[in-house]
């Protein structure tokens, strides 16, 4: 067994134990059996490895120096472990030979608690076969600040690159291919460092320059979804580029048509539909023909192909959209629905747009990807405004990996309808505060994007 597989298995065995101690008493059979399985497995490992060390570094989990990738079958386990370690400010945990079931259960029991409780119990009780190292204050602050700042920097740089790319195409000027490639790589890095940090920035919408922000947002959403399903870096780079370039054919559609506020005539609609075809030509103009551009060409052409065989441009009966085109199809629809545009001045609420996607799976959208997309964004996606039973308005800042309908919110409007810089609440941990309903931020005079900058 490789170190990587061993690490993945250890996390996969630790996760049910942590979930069990969350729900049951530590003397419950479920807890005991989970601990037994874990101990049996690591005892075998100790015959070849002297210690099992988990290190958390910038949302990555390393097992004995091997980075464990977030894959579809390990995503929940790793995310949970990462969040627990992050919340408790733990830098590393090392399991040593000799550990028994009871020591493990006791440790698991405090690992799911809050930071203060964990520290209290960890200091009071001895864990002879478990070593824990904590983040130093400056490391923690640096990490948060670094992630946030890096995400912003990447987003705005990517926006600038996207804008330049499209404007140069409009005006027939040469395109800087190298920058556009590199920015996608930065986006991939940003997503893998802190998914929610950059996802939050997709709440930045631009009514006047819809196409630029929309293109970038689709690229970011596609990358986040791609990462969730376990695509490797190379594939993510191709997916991100395809997401950004999916609507590039619109540069050939008259602006009056794109900005038309009334209902389009049949003829105008047919013209607009041509943007999928035009995208092919524009990508050829921009990038020449390398592998990345070939993938982007296919996605630009297929991104309005529906899961049930309908959509445009017309296709042969047995032709199916590629995985990337199916991803972009979902992300494109979601961002388009949640953005105010000329013919849709009031956008859909994020949670509502997500329900539209959910209810159209199998028809318009790939059902499995729709599910993963919902897991990714949560029932109330980042940037949603929620009316709480306290009368306050909370802005969704992050998802809770274990409770997708109870996100982490920041209070931005108090019960007297005054804008405030309120506290951050983990609704998953709250027993009294409940969500009443999602609400339009405009009603409260707030722009969600502003809170992420």
């Amino acid at each position, binding site marked *: 067994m490789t170190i990587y597989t061993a690490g993945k298995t250890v996390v996969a065995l630790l996760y049910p134990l942590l979930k069990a101690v969350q729900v049951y008493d530590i003397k419950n059979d479920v807890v005991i059996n989970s601990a037994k399985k874990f101990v049996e497995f690591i005892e075998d490992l100790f015959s070849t490895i002297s210690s099992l060390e988990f290190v958390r570094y910038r949302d990555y989990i390393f097992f004995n120096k091997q980075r464990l990738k977030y894959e579809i079958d390990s995503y929940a386990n790793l995310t949970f472990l990462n969040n627990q370690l992050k919340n408790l400010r733990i830098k590393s945990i090392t399991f040593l030979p000799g550990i028994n079931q009871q020591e493990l259960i006791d440790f698991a029991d405090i690992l799911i608690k809050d930071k203060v409780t964990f520290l209290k119990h960890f200091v009071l009780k001895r864990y002879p076969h478990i070593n824990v190292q904590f983040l130093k204050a400056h490391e923690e602050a640096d990490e948060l600040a670094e992630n946030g700042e890096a995400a912003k920097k990447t987003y705005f740089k990517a926006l600038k690159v996207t804008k330049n790319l499209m404007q140069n195409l409009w005006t027939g000027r040469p395109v800087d291919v190298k920058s556009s490639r590199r920015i996608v*790589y930065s986006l991939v890095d940003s997503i893998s460092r802190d998914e929610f940090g950059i996802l939050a920035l997709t709440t930045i919408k631009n009514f006047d320059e819809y196409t630029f922000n929309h293109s970038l947002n689709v690229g970011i959403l596609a990358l986040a979804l791609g990462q969730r399903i376990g695509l490797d870096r190379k594939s993510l780079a191709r997916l991100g580029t395809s997401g950004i370039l999916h609507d590039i054919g619109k540069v050939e559609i008259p602006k009056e048509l794109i900005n038309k506020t009334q209902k389009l005539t049949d003829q105008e609609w047919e013209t607009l539909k041509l943007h999928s075809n035009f995208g*092919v030509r524009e990508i*050829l103009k921009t990038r020449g023909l390398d592998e990345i551009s070939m993938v982007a060409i296919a996605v630009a052409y*297929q991104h309005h192909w529906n899961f049930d065989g309908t959509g445009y441009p017309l296709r042969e009966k047995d032709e199916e959209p590629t995985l990337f085109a199916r991803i972009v199809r979902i992300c494109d629809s979601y961002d388009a629905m949640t953005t105010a545009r000329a013919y849709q001045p009031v956008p859909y609420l994020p949670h509502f747009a997500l329900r539209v996607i959910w209810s159209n799976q199998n028809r318009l959208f790939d059902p499995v990807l729709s599910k993963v997309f919902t897991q990714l964004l949560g029932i109330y996606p980042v940037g949603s405004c929620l009316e709480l039973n306290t009368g306050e308005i909370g802005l969704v800042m992050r998802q809770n990996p274990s409770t997708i309908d109870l996100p982490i919110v920041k209070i931005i409007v108090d019960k007297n309808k005054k804008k405030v810089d309120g506290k951050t609440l983990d609704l998953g941990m709250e027993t009294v505060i409940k969500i009443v309903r999602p609400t339009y931020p405009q009603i409260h005079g707030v722009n969600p994007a502003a809170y992420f900058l």
Partner: protein
Amino acid sequence: MQGLTKAFKALQMYGMNHSSFRSFYLPFCDKMTDFLKKRNELNLQIDKFKILHENHIVYEEREMDLSIAFKLFKDGIRSISFIGGLTSDELLLLLDVISQPSKDYDVALGLWECNFSHINFYVVEEEEVVDYRIPDAPVEYVDYDEKLKQLIMREKIDIDAVIIPDLKPEEVKHLMKSITDEEKATILPLVVKTLTDFLSTERSQEVIDGLIEILESCVNTKDFYNARRIAYKLRDYPEIKFIDRFENATTIMGFKDTLNVPQNELFNEFLAFIGFFGTKSIPYLVHLMPHTERADRLTALRQRIAYIAQDDPAPIIDFLKNEDTQLMINAIAIVGIMKASKAVEALEALIAHPDERVRLAVLESLGSLRQPDLVVKFMTDPSMDARIKALRILGMLKYPQVYPVLLDKIKHKSFLAFDSTEQREYFNYLTANADSNLVRILQNLLFKRKWFGRKKYRVIRRLAAMALEQIGSEESLQVLRTGAQKRNKDIQAACEIALKGKST
């Protein structure tokens, strides 16, 4: 750094699979691992032509193509660090990236794609963006609650439905398969399909140029499946001479290996692709043919060239005068397949060619061209194979004019000296061109009294009996039945064998 330099140079010179590269690479790995065991980290600063460690120059090379420092520096890499746990695979990937020969290759992106766990690098950003302004939302009065109700009505969705997005095991499996398929699948067929579909709706120079670019790449990589699909589409644009670029000696002789690949599919795709070639390519294709090892493929290639030359056989006919026998033979075969009547004169001139292979090819083609008058000339060819072949062709062509001549030959005593195969062919010809008198003639040959040379004549009796059996009429079978009752043992045996053949 010395180890890295040596391994880098060896990789550039010999490639990754060469033993010389490994002899430099493995010690480099060991040194690196030893260093990291002691120090846990190695940080290197990259300058234009120099690499520094703790402010000391540890590497310097001012020749751009050879300089590791320059290769890293030009793409913005300013530092690189190796940390404990570094694996030999990671070092190999690193070397592979920095030794990429293309000037357009972005080393920073290459390193990024490797996703190293134990190698970090820092790349300078070209430009910083500090303006984080967000656009204002449009201000207008809207009854949002009312709007939401309208949207719910429009979308016809249950806003309170419970959503459980957990994946079932089979869905996870399906997704994993989709990902593997996507990673394995080559994008080229899809792009070709997309671009050709595009052209079905609209003519676009960019798309045509793109297809031609892909076509060139397909031809270079011997991907004739996609090349054929592109060529088929581009044929709709006769003004675009997309095949011209391949109709030269270098490209066509470059197909040599394809002729003998083990996969028939690839060979057939190649044949299909060259079907788009024009007359200009014929001389090169004829020169390519002798490299074909398999007879069936040579035949297929001849047929394909015949197809290409169908409108103008002149370039092929030119090869009938070529000094190279192999080229000449292939050209003779092709004019036969083409049924190029213009080639008859040139073929006639080759009837007496000293090389038997040439004469046989000429004979075959004259047969295809239905030229029995010329085929007859081979009846006196010094080669028995040619004579036999001529008889077969004449039989097929139903050419009765030569019938009396052959009969005389059979009756002549010299016929007994012929090889049995040739003798049989004479009789085959007779049956192929049978007339009402033939049964009587064969009967005479079968029942002829022989006082001398009975043993040798036994063959004639048997061939006559077989010919009667082949004719198969009531009259001819009656002759055989009568013969079977004769007291002459030779006649009896010949007839019984023939009748036995009939019954089986």
